[in-house]
């Protein structure tokens, strides 16, 4: 019964579905994966339309060619990825395998297997991206693959391709209510079940745990969202929005690095909070490291995630952030940080050996003017402000002693140039200083009032330690480009880096673009907050809001089975609902019959009924005859009359009331 060979129609549907499912993968897979996949599909197409031979027992040569391509693909896989187990290698293997399989589909068994593997290829897409466009594409793919199954089971093509696709869409729409129930109520298990392959988390752009000059300025090319924040109540001024990330202490002259882990976690910072409290919820995109970017400075550990503070004030998650995370924090923008003592001052005075001679010279010169730390800071900031220093998004490449070259020659730099050279200057003058990296500012989306912080808001600033006052934030960039801090990054971006439409110099277009982008961001945000973030924790929270006393899996299973049965009953009644479909001619005739004061008897044919009615309505007999004749002609197969005539005649026919 199942040995039928899939039809041409079914094969074409399958190839369409598989290529769409594999499409997003091609952008990051090696070129040869695409080449093999496409040529295999091309081979099958040529076999369909131009009777090319397929590998089979009759065509040994083709079989030989097919096998050698399979071997070649395995060798290429092993050389490109080193193994066949990881995520990327596995997906590439699946893609190539499906391409090779398409050529040798002979029975419906092969066809079902390819179709089911196609469904699996869809899910692998979600391991890379769960964005709305990707989800939409994959829904279309699922519809097409379902059409494939229908097409296979309709070997005689009683349905045309359009009706097959329509039936598939109909069935999927009927499945959606059940799917929603399962999504909400199916007991979720927090993954991973076993160790994830090492390549499971692809590299992301973002702040790193080290810094070289020119590194952060690369980030501003990226419009990617780093995190989103929703303030509950009051929101601090733009110039106070410092989002603290990695703190850098050590310099080898080029690269700045963190303290080692032991020193970092040895003690807790001593914070004295002042002024207003700001409460907010942050949704941080995955960045594969542990920092939780927090408004300087949090007054407690976050809710919703396990985390701890380091002695230099970083907020670190206990586990690396492999996926989008949400946490609640409250913060004070005015605070005192370790005002009395700090045991790591030696680290904050470290200078690379025998480097930056001219910078050290300058610091020595300032030391002769004053010994007070804050006055030294002021001297440096004035120096940046008064001399011809420029703040630029595309600083020139520096060579040699980068700090000296920047301070005395190029004088064009981004925030990290100012932060690094300021730190060297201060340390040379004996003031303990450290660099803090993170983000500054952000942009409010007027659609949903979320503050959006993008990669281009990445920033580096410094902190100096003064006895009695603790660590004080000094932002050398503000001395050069005050508007960067006060108004945010957007104002200083060159026009062509803001949006493609800005190029047109048209205000309306630019505003339209901004509105569209804001709306899209807001949609994307709710997608993240509600669909993608729905895991074990959110499920518990949501279900207890729905009225489940204490959500555990037993209760979920009970709720699920009850509601599933109800919905299934509703859907079956929808599917089995018998719509009375009268032929339009009969429907019209019934309308005609209903216009009289007498009813047509079941045994009465149209002629008998007309004779009877004509006696009751002698004035209308001509009309009755005409309609009756039209009806009889239409119903009994005389196609020379049109149904519109009958419709018109019945519409205008108005017998008098008796």
């Amino acid at each position, binding site marked *: 019964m199942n040995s039928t060979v899939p039809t041409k129609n079914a094969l074409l549907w399958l190839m369409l579905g598989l290529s769409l499912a594999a499409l997003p993968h091609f952008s990051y897979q090696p070129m040869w994966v695409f080449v093999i996949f496409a040529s295999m599909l091309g081979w099958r197409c040529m076999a369909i339309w131009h009777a090319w031979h397929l590998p089979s027992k009759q065509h040994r040569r083709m079989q030989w060619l097919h096998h050698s391509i399979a071997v070649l693909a395995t060798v290429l896989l092993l050389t490109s990825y080193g193994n066949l187990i990881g995520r990327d290698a596995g997906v590439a293997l699946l893609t190539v395998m499906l391409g090779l399989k398409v050529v040798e589909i002979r029975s419906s068994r092969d066809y079902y297997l390819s179709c089911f593997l196609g469904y699996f290829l869809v899910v692998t897409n*979600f391991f890379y991206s769960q964005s709305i466009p990707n989800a939409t594409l994959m829904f279309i793919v699922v519809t097409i693959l379902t059409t494939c199954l229908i097409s296979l089971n309709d070997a005689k093509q009683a349905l045309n391709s359009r009706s097959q696709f329509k039936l598939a869409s109909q069935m999927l729409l009927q499945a959606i209510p059940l*799917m929603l129930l399962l999504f909400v109520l199916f007991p979720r298990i927090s993954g991973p079940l076993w160790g994830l392959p090492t390549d499971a988390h692809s590299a992301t752009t973002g702040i790193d745990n080290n810094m070289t000059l020119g590194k952060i300025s690369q980030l501003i090319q990226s419009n990617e969202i780093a995190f989103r924040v929703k303030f509950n109540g009051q929101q601090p001024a733009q110039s106070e929005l410092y989002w603290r990330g990695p703190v850098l202490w050590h310099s080898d002259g080029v690269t700045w690095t963190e303290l080692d882990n032991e020193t970092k976690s040895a003690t807790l910072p001593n914070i004295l909070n002042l002024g207003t409290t700001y409460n907010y919820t942050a949704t941080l995109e995955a960045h594969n490291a542990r920092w939780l970017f927090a408004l300087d400075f949090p007054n407690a550990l976050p809710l919703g995630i396990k985390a701890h503070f380091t002695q230099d004030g970083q907020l670190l998650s206990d586990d690396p952030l492999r996926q989008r995370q949400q946490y609640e924090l409250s913060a004070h923008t005015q605070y005192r940080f370790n005002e009395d003592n700090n045991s790591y001052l030696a680290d904050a005075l470290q200078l690379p050996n025998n480097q930056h001679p001219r910078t050290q010279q300058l610091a020595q010169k300032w030391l002769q003017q004053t010994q007070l730390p804050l006055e030294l800071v002021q001297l440096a900031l004035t120096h940046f402000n008064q001399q011809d220093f420029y703040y630029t998004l595309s600083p020139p490449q520096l060579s040699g002693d980068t700090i000296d070259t920047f301070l005395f020659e190029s004088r064009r730099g981004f925030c990290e140039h100012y932060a690094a050279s300021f730190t060297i200057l201060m340390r040379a003058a004996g003031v303990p200083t450290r660099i803090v990296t993170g983000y500054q500012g952000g942009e409010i989306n007027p659609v949903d009032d979320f503050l959006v912080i993008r990669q281009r808001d990445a920033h580096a600033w410094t902190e100096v330690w003064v006895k009695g006052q603790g660590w004080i934030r000094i932002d050398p960039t503000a001395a050069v480009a005050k508007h960067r801090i006060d108004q945010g990054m957007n104002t200083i971006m060159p026009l062509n880096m803001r949006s493609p439409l800005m190029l047109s110099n048209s205000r309306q277009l630019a505003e339209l673009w901004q509105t569209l982008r804001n709306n899209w961001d807001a949609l994307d945000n709710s997608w993240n907050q509600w669909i993608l973030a729905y895991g074990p924790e959110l499920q518990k929270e949501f279900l207890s809001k729905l009225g489940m006393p204490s959500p555990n899996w037993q209760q979920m299973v009970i709720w699920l089975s009850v509601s599933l049965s109800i919905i299934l009953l509703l859907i079956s009644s929808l599917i089995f609902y018998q719509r009375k479909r009268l032929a339009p001619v009969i429907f019209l005739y019934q309308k005609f019959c209903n216009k009289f004061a007498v009813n047509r008897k079941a045994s009465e044919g149209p002629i008998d009924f007309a004779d009877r009615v004509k006696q009751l309505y002698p004035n209308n007999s001509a009309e009755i005859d005409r309609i009756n004749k039209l009806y009889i002609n239409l119903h009994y197969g005389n196609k020379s009359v049109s149904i519109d005539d009958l419709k018109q005649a019945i519409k205008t026919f108005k017998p008098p009331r008796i």
Partner: protein
Amino acid sequence: MMPHTLSQLYHRFNQLRGRRIFIVPTRFGFAYAGFLILILLGAINYSSSLGHVLCFLLGSLGLVAMLHTYRNLAKIELHHAFSEHVFCGEKIHFTVLFDNQSHHDSYQLNVASKQVLTPTFNPFRLFKGYRHHYLIPMLKAQLTTTVSITLASERRGRQPLGRIRIASQFPLGLYTTWSYFNTSAYALVYPKPLGGLPLPSANDNGQQSNHHKQTGVDDFSGFDIYRSGDPIHAIAWKAMARDDVMRTKQFTSYQGGNVMLSWQDVAQLRDTEARLSQLCRWILHAEAAGMNYGLSLATTAINYGQGEQHRHRCLSALALYE
């Protein structure tokens, strides 16, 4: 008392339920479920919310597909089945009329007949016992269609159509649903016309006066008013179109004579089947020659006659001879 009431209830329920419809997953249905589990494991492992969505969507699709498969078959009824009568050794063509009583079109209905009683224990080969498959690609709502089921005639006598199974896997092939119809339709299988004995000589005397006019298939002799039972091919359609009165064309046979075919004539043959075959052959000869013939068996006697109906009476008597 209690068990009695329960069994009564059960029977009433069974009557209400009517014909039984079975549905089970196919091996591809089980494979589909396996793939769903794989997808779920992948989704859990990568904590992919959309992976969960996909798994649940496909799972729900599986449930919906079950309803669709069931609906595809639920309202299909076997309207009736019949067959022409054949001689032993010829193929029997049963015409089976199926009726879609629902308001939805049905597709890919697989009709099978002739149960071969070899029990099978392979759950994926439920239909192994059935031979002779016929496919109805589409049966529109509220319409009927016919399927021609061909069986070999093995023995003379009544050959029942037997149990008919109708099955479908439409639309996704994940489930197979089936149902049985027990029909009482049968084909009458006449004995095979065989044997080389000459036709017993016609006896012309005595009974000539008993019939005034022998009607046969030879020469046209005029019209007569139609009486029910007259052969359809004899109806004068053209004449009817003129004045709406049904007439039959009358033919008169002038040749032949009267012959009584009796058991004694074939007594020399070796067994019953051979005798019946010889009688069958004689009847065909006599009919073709336009003779008046009768049949006299141990159990039955058929008087002289001629024509399609008479021939059938005689052949049936042979077919059902015990």
